């Protein structure tokens, strides 16, 4: 497998083969040296997640009734959207639970890692002209790309090995543990290969990351839709690389061949990437830049106009991509009813949820996803200010008659409006999809209200990003940590038995769900107050501090 994934760039004529890869190993060592901290964190985080949830599954298994209640629960539409195709629910063992419920998130996490790692060491390097230095040294033309892939492969294999060890250590079958871990690695690598293709097509690392993340989002949505349509997934599920790992049916009725789909996809993607790469110049995209205007439009006369010009394309594509995802997900709400019927005979299931609430619970989870997507957009957009500062453009802009407050205000205004647009269009698309499908369980207005209630929490994320930028620009990644923590609390709080105080750290914990309960306006006010304080802190801090230079 490892040989196959690294091979295609080698397919250059044999006479040059040796030279185009010269230096690959020194580059691999260099990448490992540069990224040692982040790679270590990724390598340990995934096995740690297995470890954290295994304890809960094991204690749940001591009580067979509890395990069957869990099996019924994971077949509800809301849970299907956040777990898997539901193999082994007849006899829900610890292994079946791990395979059904955790594989999705492990693939997502490692796919994000693979995408970021590939883009970081291909397009981003080329963009920064650092790799020009490397390429001018005694390093082959394909060495950098192969080195980036080798590192991604290594990390995925290390994670697979550690995960297998954790799973076997908890008493699960060895073959299934290894198979599942390798399947997860294969799916994640598929997204790494997609990122490599994206890095050839776009000229900027942000574009390459965005395109790859869009592919990941599409894979996530297709898997949800397919698994909602039929138990164990319809043909739609099989379009998603995430499903390939889940369909190996680890711990239930193991089959290896779905992993082969990943291997084939990776090879094909690498061939595509390699042929695209040979068609373009170093540093260039596939589409050459066209000349632009010699004079600026009259509207480009304020910092906010400039920020808007810089962010509008990213906003446009995010809105289109996410709205499409949520619309597609919305169109399957009418199938929630039929899923419920098939489970109606199950007495355990009836005790878990009343029938009327399943659709609301499902829609509530999708609204949560939409809010998480908007939060991620908001953080990326808010931290563009830091990118401006690091590049020296903030310094340049601040030597014009633009005050610190106006400059930051322009960034935050455009960011806030963009985040609002992403959330509102996403929720409207979801509500629209549900309306098209036709359901009586939720109304258009209810879905929209549920979405809008996330706005104060989103403001907290944007405000925290801004405050960190103003007071501790080197620690801005903490806001990503909070988002990751929010995901964990939103999805796994019960599984991990998180205490209440730990849940309260998540801004989303304070968001009321009007679909299943009442709106707590005190919480809304509290979130708004926290956001306001963070925004004020951001302005105060940015006015006081030195503007750094590279």
């Amino acid at each position: 497998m490892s040989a196959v994934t690294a091979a295609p760039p080698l397919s250059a004529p044999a006479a040059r083969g040796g030279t185009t890869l010269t230096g690959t190993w020194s580059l691999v060592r260099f990448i490992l040296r540069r990224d040692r901290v982040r790679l270590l964190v990724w390598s340990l985080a995934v096995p740690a997640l297995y470890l954290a949830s295994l304890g809960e599954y094991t204690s749940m298994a001591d009580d067979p009734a509890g395990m069957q209640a869990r099996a019924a629960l994971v077949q509800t539409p809301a849970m299907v959207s956040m777990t898997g195709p539901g193999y082994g629910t007849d006899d829900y063992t610890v292994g079946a639970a791990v395979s059904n419920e955790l594989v999705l998130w492990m693939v997502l996490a490692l796919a994000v890692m693979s995408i970021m790692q590939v883009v970081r060491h291909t397009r981003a390097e080329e963009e920064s002209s650092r790799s020009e230095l490397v390429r001018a040294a005694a390093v082959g033309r394909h060495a950098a790309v192969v080195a980036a892939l080798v590192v991604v492969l290594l990390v995925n294999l290390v994670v697979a090995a550690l995960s297998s060890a954790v799973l076997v250590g908890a008493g699960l079958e060895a073959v299934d543990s290894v198979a599942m871990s390798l399947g997860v690695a294969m799916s994640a690598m598929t997204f790494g290969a997609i990122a490599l293709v994206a890095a050839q097509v776009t000229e900027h690392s942000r574009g390459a990351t965005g395109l790859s993340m869009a592919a990941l989002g599409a894979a996530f949505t297709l898997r949800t839709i397919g698994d909602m349509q039929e138990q164990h997934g319809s043909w739609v599920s099989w379009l998603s690389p995430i499903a390939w790992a889940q369909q190996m049916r680890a711990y239930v009725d193991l089959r290896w061949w779905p992993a082969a789909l990943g291997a084939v996809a990776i090879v094909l993607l690498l061939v595509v990437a390699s042929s695209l790469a040979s068609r373009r110049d170093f540093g260039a995209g596939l589409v050459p830049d066209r000349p632009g205007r010699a004079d600026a439009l009259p509207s480009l006369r304020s910092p906010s106009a400039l920020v808007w010009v810089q962010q509008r394309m990213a906003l446009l594509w995010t809105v289109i991509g996410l709205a499409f995802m949520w619309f597609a997900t919305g169109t399957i709400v009418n199938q929630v009813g039929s899923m419920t019927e098939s489970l109606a005979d199950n007495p355990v299931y009836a005790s878990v949820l009343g029938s009327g609430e399943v659709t609301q619970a499902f829609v509530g989870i999708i609204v949560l996803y939409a809010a998480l997507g908007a939060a991620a957009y908001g953080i990326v957009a808010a931290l563009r200010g830091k990118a401006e500062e690091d590049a020296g453009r903030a310094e340049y802009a601040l030597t014009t008659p633009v005050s610190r407050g106006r400059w930051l205000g322009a960034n935050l205004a455009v960011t806030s409006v963009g985040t609002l647009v992403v959330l509102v269009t996403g929720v409207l698309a979801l509500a629209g999809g549900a309306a098209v499908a036709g359901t009586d369980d939720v109304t258009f207005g209810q879905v929209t209200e549920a979405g809008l209630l996330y706005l104060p929490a989103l403001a907290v994320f944007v405000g925290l990003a801004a405050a960190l930028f103003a007071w501790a620009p080197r620690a801005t990644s903490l806001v990503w940590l909070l988002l990751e923590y929010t995901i964990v609390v939103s999805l796994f709080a019960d599984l991990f038995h998180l205490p209440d105080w730990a849940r309260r750290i998540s801004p989303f914990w304070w968001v009321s769900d009007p679909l299943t309960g009442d709106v707590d306006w005190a919480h809304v006010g509290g979130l708004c107050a926290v956001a306001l304080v963070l925004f004020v802190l951001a302005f105060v801090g940015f006015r006081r501090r030195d503007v750094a230079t590279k």
Partner: protein
Amino acid sequence: MTTTAASTTRSGATTAPAVEIHDLRKSFGSVQALDGLDLTVEAGQVAGFLGPNGAGKSTTIRVLLGLLRADSGSARLLGGDPWRDAVALHRRLAYVPGDVSLWPNLTGGEAIDYLARLRGKPDKRRKAELLERFELDPTKKARTYSKGNRQKVALVAAFVSQVDLLVLDEPTSGLDPLMEAVFTEQVREAKAAGTSVLLSSHILSEVEKVCDTVTIIRGGRSVESGTLDDLRHLTRSAVTAVVDGDPSAIGSMAGVHDLATTGNGAGTRVTFDVDNSEMGRVLPAISALGVHSFTAQPPSLEELFMRHYGDELAADGVPADGAGRHAASTRAGAR
């Protein structure tokens, strides 16, 4: 505003200097970037700002632009406080960084317009004229510009606005010699229009061509400042003469260094360096020997620079003298 500044120059320093820095200190963690720096730019003058890499030139400029807050000392810019009055002061100045970073999806022309509009004085005709002189294509996206072209965008954006002060931080890095000449011409025009200029540079010929005064800094502290003539007075001139008599006695005069003689058909060829302060006493002694030919070369700025910078190199184990001579001889060859 510009006329005020121009008249100030003519009538002497009756109004506030464009830049006035006294005993400025700034540290980044344990690194003392500025250690009691003094710098003055009189209104309407072009001031050169010289120093080796890491001497604190850019830090000084960033304090002046209100980007960094000084730890202690005073800095005044156009009569205002660079930190507190930043916005008002920035209306009256333009800045060119040494490494220009532009907004990747704007064209050069759009970036120039944007910056000019923020200063509130866009001038289409002036922009077209500058684009032509700097031979810059304004329709290309900033990300496709080379370093030199990005530098040109910033220069055009700075010269297009009529401002009271130009702050230029190694502005010609990456420009070819032809464009450097255009730059020199623009600085002279700006000066003629009454603009004060602070020019930080490594290119000594450039400073020599346009600057009225020079400040040399090292280790965050000013080591020399004054007009070029003042500074030259402090150093030596290189004298070459052909004389009838025996010049060896001159070698023992105060202020004369490195005297060497060679036989020459008509007389004796003598070369030596002389402290400019002693020139008045050495000249009569030479003329008493019967002079056939005589040249005296004033010290170049490079030699001034090497004199202050050289001992630092020597401290680092680099033969400063050799480096200085080499630089000086290259320069002499260029003349």
